[in-house]
């Protein structure tokens, strides 16, 4: 059973996605803040991570992703970022473009609200490509 870690400060969003993904047969771990998320990532070694961008700070998602990549065994774990921020975030980067994603160390950026089937499709896509590569 593949393990998914969702990090988001919105309990309701987590609850909904967790309920859905569990019914689809995934094991779901959740965290409401980046410290808790890093701890869960370290202890549960997820197969894929879904992270929010704006949590305690507007860039918490980046900080989290960078730190996750430094954890043993998680250097290449697929990370999907989901955010309610506009695609073009005013300050420094554009989430839609490949260089932006590279810099953020995430594989995919999805804009909230993310339809459940779409999220599921992305999860399956990254998990299967991972299996093929492995």
């Amino acid at each position, binding site marked *: 059973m593949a393990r998914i870690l969702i990090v988001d*400060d*919105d*309990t*309701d*969003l987590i*609850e*909904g*996605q967790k*309920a*859905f993904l569990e*019914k689809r047969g995934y094991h779901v771990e959740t965290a*409401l*803040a980046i410290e*808790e998320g890093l701890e869960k990532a370290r202890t549960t070694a997820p197969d894929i991570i879904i992270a929010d961008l*704006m*949590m*305690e700070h507007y860039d918490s998602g980046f900080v989290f992703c960078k730190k996750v990549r430094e954890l043993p065994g998680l250097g290449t774990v697929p990370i999907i970022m989901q955010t*309610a*921020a*506009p695609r073009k975030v*005013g300050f420094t980067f554009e989430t839609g473009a490949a260089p932006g994603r590279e810099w953020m160390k995430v594989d995919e950026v999805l804009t*909230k*609200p*993310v*339809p*459940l089937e779409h999220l599921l499709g992305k999860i399956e896509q990254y998990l299967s490509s991972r299996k093929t590569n492995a």
Partner: protein
Amino acid sequence: MPETRPAAPPQVSPIDDPAGRDREVLRILVIDDEEGMREGMRRVLERRGFSVRTARDGETALRLLEDAPADVALVDLKMPGIDGFKVTESITRRFAGRTVVVIVSALATVEAAVEVTQHGAFDFLVKPFTPEDLVQVVNRAAQQWRLIRERERYLSELASERNLSHQMIASMHEGVVVLNIRREPVLMNPRAEHFLGTHFRDGVTLADIFPDLEIQTAIEAVVEAAAGKSETRVLQRSIGDAEAGGSHGSSSTGAWEGMLSVSISPLMLDGERGGAIVILTDVTESWKAEQDKNRFVSMVAHELKSPLSAILNYINVILTGMFDDNPAKIKEMLERCKVRGEALLDLVRDLLYINSRDVGKVERSIEELDLKAVIASQLEFFKVQTEKRRIVAVLDAPLPRYPVRADRGDMDRVFMNLISNGIKYNRERGSLTVRITDAGDAWEIAVSDTGIGMSEAELSCIFHEFYRVKGPKTSGIAGTGLGLATVKRVLGEYNGRITVHSKPDAGSTFTVLFPKG
């Protein structure tokens, strides 16, 4: 002398004629070596209302003119000493435009007429002449004198108008740069020099003044555009590091920094292309306001999308049918949808409130209010919530009344927000205390809870719009992120203040100082 002057004397301002030369009486100097001639002419002319002086020779005449000018000089051609031609030359050289010379001569030939005019005389009068001849010639000379005066006045008006335009341009709050058809800067006012950090000097080029290529290109295009096509181009340029968030005004180097609107119009000279006029306007303030507004709108979009995402997420889970066998779970999700939906409504309500304050739509009606009554009614309003969480709410206000002068809606909003926070961020079975004390010319209202408290870092942000303390302890607590920002703004309008003391896990105290009514 109605025949020599217009019916109404011309209006002459003292500036145009400081010596009062444009008065009614025309001043005439008669220069003749024959006394009978001099006196005869004087009699004729004085009878017609002219002011007449006489001189027996050229030297005397020039001395008299030095003392006081004459408007018309009647010069006898044949005199001992300096002859009439010499006198005429001297007069026209020294008093050109002020004295009109008429030669009086016995030589009635065309050659003589040409000669005297070559020497600078206006007309000539042939001896012998009748008094009417004399008056006629003097009137013509007077008319000429008036024409000269008028042209002079016109020229001086023109000069002062040019001077006025120049001073107007120099005094303008906008920067002005004028370029000729060869794109050479020909004028730059002090404001433009200030904005652009360059000084106008001979030989300065377009590129010296506007290093920005896009501005150069726009100026080229405007100058090139077909005549009559008076198209104006407008660009915006940031000068210095204003865009990087630098402070508005002058930088440490003294150079101007900010956002300029650059408006380039064709300069038309008699319907032909003559160059370009560039007007520079400081739009830093409105640009910053726009930036703030854009930032605010994108924050609002984010804040609206978050609850909507959560709600849609729940609904979509329910719609998959995967929980059809678990009605309790569905109900739980719907309850959360309701909470989030209500919070969303609160957000919209707060946004509308802020907007209405911003645009000044809210008519505040200032009345005398009792703070104790305002707060008591808010505590009553939140009774359901306090009881649900078993929080003990206390209003500690020993005086019978705490009068203030304020709008009831504003006061409700301030204390509704503070009390609502005191409940939401409290712990189960905690307490919420509102204490009013006398602080001299203000009332001090302290709202204390026994809840989760805040760290120093969190405290520094709580009055910012859309900031919400986020973490495991606050998850699930609904809020708009606008409450305290609004409280601070409203209090500011009444010269009130709000401060906060808090420690993590030990609760928070918000203290309001509000002027007594």
